[in-house]
């Protein structure tokens, strides 16, 4: 679901617009045809970055969430601050070989080939309520793998939260393994002035 569809609170529309304008579009990265949504420019705008985190914190604060899982690496940038804001644990979900302890792994399919996401055994207890955070959702492959990892540990994935995602259900992802998706903004298609 999109924040604006959900009946944005007064002032939220302005905050979302500022957040959107702070995101830089880089054409043809990492390859031809992709309009890359670069959130690093958002991180340079203290107020807009803080507003983005606050919107998630406001949403999740009273939902009894005990775990925020963040997808390496841009999910860490938003996820750890959200975890601190709601008093939850932060659990990093990493590429293979990064986590030092015993891990569980979940493979997922890419356009060409496959990749793998890992989580520490014991990080999450059965029936904990979890949200998963990443900067952007495209096909939903990574978030699906993340959801499966958490469910294998017995946790309940309440929602996935992303700064950017595509709203059209025919084109983009609006549920991940049947779990709701909460997205602040749509991707911008046009290169902007940065």
């Amino acid at each position: 679901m999109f924040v604006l569809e959900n009946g944005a609170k007064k002032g939220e529309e302005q905050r979302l617009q500022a957040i959107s304008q702070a995101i830089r579009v880089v054409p043809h990265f990492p390859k031809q045809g992709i309009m890359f949504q670069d959130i690093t420019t958002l991180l340079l705008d203290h107020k807009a970055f803080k507003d983005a985190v606050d919107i998630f914190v406001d949403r999740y604060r009273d939902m009894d969430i005990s775990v925020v899982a963040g997808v390496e690496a841009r999910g860490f940038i938003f996820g750890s601050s959200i975890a601190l804001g709601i008093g939850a644990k932060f659990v990093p979900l990493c590429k293979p070989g990064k986590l030092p302890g015993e891990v569980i792994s979940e493979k997922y399919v890419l356009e060409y080939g496959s990749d793998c996401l890992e989580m520490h055994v014991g990080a999450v207890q059965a029936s904990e309520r979890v949200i998963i955070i990443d900067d952007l959702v495209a096909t939903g492959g990574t978030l699906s793998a993340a959801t499966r990892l958490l469910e294998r540990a017995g946790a309940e994935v309440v929602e996935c939260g992303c700064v950017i995602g595509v709203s059209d259900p025919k084109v983009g992802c609006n549920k991940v393994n049947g779990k709701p998706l909460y997205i602040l903004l749509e991707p911008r298609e046009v290169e902007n002035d940065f």
Partner: protein
Amino acid sequence: MSAYKDQDPRLHGIKTKIRVVPNFPKSGIMFQDITTLLLDPKAFKDTIDLFVERYKGKNISVVAGIEARGFIFGPPIALAIGAKFVPLRKPKKLPGKVISQEYILEYGRDCLEMHVGAVEPGERALVVDDLIATGGTLCAAMDLLERVGAEVMECACVIELPELKGRERLNGKPLYVLVEYMEI
């Protein structure tokens, strides 16, 4: 400087939450695993608070965090002190125009990159990472910031491995850590 020496009561809780994993990534290394610290919301908050208390009101406008664990600690510090967060990344991850700094590892080399235009000349910056070992990565990070004319005020890490003498490698730049890990 190490906060541990000053005996802030929060430090004991932080130190005990860090898990040491022997022989990772290779034999002989006692890996300092901060993921267990992140599982304790109070200890994680205390970690951030200790840095924020030190840096708030000091006119620091940039917090640069080193990929990937610096992305966990850096942004909350940046948000709390009113600074921008600038990610310093492995090659080819940043989509825009970058400057690169190579650095030497025990075996071979690596490279750190920063977006052009992220930091302006004269800005006062911090570099944040979870741990300082030999200091090679932190040096590369400082080089990137200084090359664009920023002033690196301090490097801030949760953990220091003093036996590896990383502090000496920082060319006189101050280093602030919360805890030290000694093998003995």
